[in-house]
């Protein structure tokens, strides 16, 4: 079975001004969104309030979560503790619609504890507050900068490898599109104000990995076709490369997408953020592999000469007939 017409020769490069224009627009919009709306950082980043509730009768973690959601506290982290009658709830002050953090700016621990207790007692009268405390953030300053360093090292490492294995133009194109993919993915988080926690951060870094994988496959074909072609018109070669790898690009995106969708729907709330980020990243990465990476190569002026295998000056070989 084949979905794609293998004779298709869509002129992807022909729409390069349009497609790259959109990409740049998306990037600028993402940066603006991140700057203006900022990310909705999760407890991992911001810290918050930790409460322990005690029930007279055994309670299900899911029920507690439902009760909190009904009260408008949607992002609370609920975990069972010790036995079946104790749960720990961690939440950010802003999750509590009544806490009024926005006006005061200062967290009123008593008020939040009170609100949560009332909300839970509305569902189960036997809920009692056992203890309450502030929580620091799991992601310390150093860890946050570690994440940024990791992302930069990833990009440099990949750039270096591509520079050696291919050519510097490929490294530049790859890093530019990677930055685009990561930015746009984070930008969508800023737009939707979904919670940005540590697993989401891990996922954004994974998006970089996926996206580079995707680009390298196209680049590899570009190199192969350039080397094979006698008369190499860059635009034509690039177009052919995208078309030749198109079915693979989309099938792989679909397959990976399927697993991430399974994770999203059945993996439970702990991996929701991860799965949704990957789904966004796969979409963005696939589109940029098709529409953005190659035009950059073209503009950088990739040519057949750049890609011929480097023959070393070998006097031994030169002497041979």
């Amino acid at each position: 079975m084949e979905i794609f017409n293998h004779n298709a020769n869509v002129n992807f490069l022909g729409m390069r001004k349009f497609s790259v224009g959109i990409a740049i627009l998306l990037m600028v919009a993402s940066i603006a969104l991140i700057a203006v709306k900022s990310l909705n950082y999760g407890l991992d980043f911001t810290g918050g309030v930790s409460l322990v509730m005690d029930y007279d009768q055994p309670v299900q973690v899911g029920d507690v979560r439902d009760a909190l959601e009904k009260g408008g506290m949607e992002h609370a982290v609920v975990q069972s503790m010790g036995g079946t009658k104790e749960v720990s709830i961690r939440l950010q002050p802003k999750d509590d619609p009544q806490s009024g953090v926005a006006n005061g700016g200062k967290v009123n621990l008593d008020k939040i504890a009170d609100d949560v207790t009332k909300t839970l007692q509305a569902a189960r009268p036997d809920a009692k507050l056992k203890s309450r405390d502030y929580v620091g953030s799991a992601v310390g300053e150093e860890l946050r900068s570690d994440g940024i360093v990791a992302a930069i090292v990833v990009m440099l490492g990949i750039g270096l490898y591509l520079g050696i294995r291919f050519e510097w133009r490929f490294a530049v194109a790859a890093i530019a599109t990677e930055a685009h993919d990561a930015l746009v993915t984070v930008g969508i988080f800023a737009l939707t104000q979904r919670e940005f926690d540590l697993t989401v951060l891990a996922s954004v870094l994974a998006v970089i990995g996926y996206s580079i994988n995707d680009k390298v496959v196209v680049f590899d074909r570009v190199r192969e076709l350039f080397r094979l072609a006698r008369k190499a018109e860059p635009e034509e070669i690039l177009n052919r490369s995208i078309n030749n790898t198109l079915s693979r690009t989309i099938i792989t995106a679909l397959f990976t997408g399927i697993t991430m969708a399974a994770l999203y729907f059945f993996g439970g709330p702990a991996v929701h953020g991860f799965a949704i980020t990957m789904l966004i990243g796969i979409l963005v990465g696939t589109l940029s592999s098709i529409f953005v990476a190659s035009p950059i190569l073209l503009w950088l002026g990739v040519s057949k000469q750049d890609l011929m295998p480097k023959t070393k000056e070998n006097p031994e070989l030169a002497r041979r007939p």
Partner: protein
Amino acid sequence: MSDFPRWKYALVAIVLVLGIVYALPNVFLPVPAVQITANRNGTVDQALEQKVSDALKKASVASTGIELNGDHLLASFANPDVQKSASDAIKAALGDDYTVAFNLKSTVPHWLTTIGAKSMPLGLDLQGGVHFLMQVDQDDVIDKQETRYADDIRSLLREKNIRYDSVVRNAQRGQGVSVVLKSAEDRTAAANVIAADYPDLTLTDGPATGDRFPINAVVRPDKLRELSVNTIRQNLGTLRNRINALGVSEPIIQQQGESRIVVELAGVQDTAEAKKIIGATATLEYRSGYGTPQQAIDAARSGIVPPDARLYKDRDGRPYLLSKNIIVTGDQLVDASSSFDQQSGSPAVSVTLNTAGAKKMLDFTTGNVGKPMGVVYVERVVDTKVVDGKEVRTPKITEEVINYATINGVFGKNFQTTGLRSPKEASELALLLKGGSLAAPVDIVEERVIGPSLGQDNIAKGLRAVTLGLALVLLAAAFYYKLFGLVADVALFFNLVILIAVMSAVGVTLTMPGIAGIVLTLGMAIDANVLICERIREELRNGSSPHAAIRAGYDKAWATILDANVTHLIAALALTTMGSGPIKGFGVTLLIGILTSMFTSVTVTHAITALIHGHRKLKTLSV
């Protein structure tokens, strides 16, 4: 077809068998157990085993086995509920001499463990673990700081030749240091030099009486706040180091409130061992020697200690007099490693000090060659006792002279501490010192074992996501690439098995982000097969014969697969080495997954393809 050499078949077969064997332990789920370890006064022996089994019988709790395991006793139970009541019964029967803790008992068969096969440890989110809440002793920070300022001011005045009557800490904590000068001129001079050298002190003149001209030096509140913030930060770092030494992966160590630290250790159910490492604060103090050995013996006998000295003992009970002034403490220590003294061959600890510490050590040794110096080992353990139904915590401080020797020469940054009893003692001391000393002592104020119920819920969900994702991809691949898709499916399945085998063998802690990593790896692993299949299709379209198409498909796709995977590998490597927490766990999974998937999706599929198509004449390919 001799496309595929025999040794490669053998390699594939061996790896697959090894993969299955080493993944196997994960099938045997651990059972809930109660672990009993002896405190100082208890012994673990057959009698204890009898006592425990009697206690369980009396409480009519059924155990599935009691096992004597070296220094601890492990009783296993059918489910967590039984485990809980069993723990209560055992605690009541044994009293304070034993630590009774929840644990998990492995059910992996003996033959598997003997070949080193073990199951993956599960993270806190998957199986629960220990949760500690620790209180940082801020008073101690202020005490230390004020004492240090007093010492510093004293030596500053001496250095500047300003005569003083006394420099002492005020009796009340936080009230600073009282400096008494002999004249008004001295007081002005002293105030000037102190203000110049220590801008963090607020100086106020006290009422002058006769020849007493006091200045009160109080540490500025913002400096104190900064100190307490730094203390917490240093303690967090130190705890992180120590816990890393424990070998717990993905621990959570975070600040809570002003002076509390939360530590969560996944997979650790043995609270006693964790507490020993986390709770113990060990540090060294280098103090100058005082008086003669005879004076020390006299002081020990009479109980009269000179005002400038303190009486210490070594492990054998020999008394030593050391100066009250500390030259250098453990928090000025940068590195410590165990070694052997080159002259005597006895175990030693090599110590490196920071610049401030090095300067002090240099200053001291310069003026004191030929005089004795003592090294005091200070360990602080908090004892918890229940008195009248209330928990009473008493910090117990053990101070011991571990080394008392004559200073042979001037030294600063690097030097050795000799006179340790055994290499083991030296390495333990080095580990504790290198872990960083805690800037302030911590007491464990709350300790909880997090129940596995949430974990079971998460495991069930994770398992469902893995199987469903896998099933969908298998179906899609078989549907889209037919026979070649089926071959890829077999390889993908084995990829999962080998991935789990490697993760188990390496000892990667499985967490929810780790499961997400596995699922992602499965999704991306199929990419190599997609590349191969698409290539084979292309070759067939271009008119190649089936065998040639397979050969060319694998050959040409390999270069692409390699480039794509190496770049991906670089990303995974960066996540693994530079990330922390879930990022690291996810990175490790990704790293292993990329490597295993390269093997299964290229070599394994090639082997199977060669087996199927190898000796037949082919007209068409099912791809």
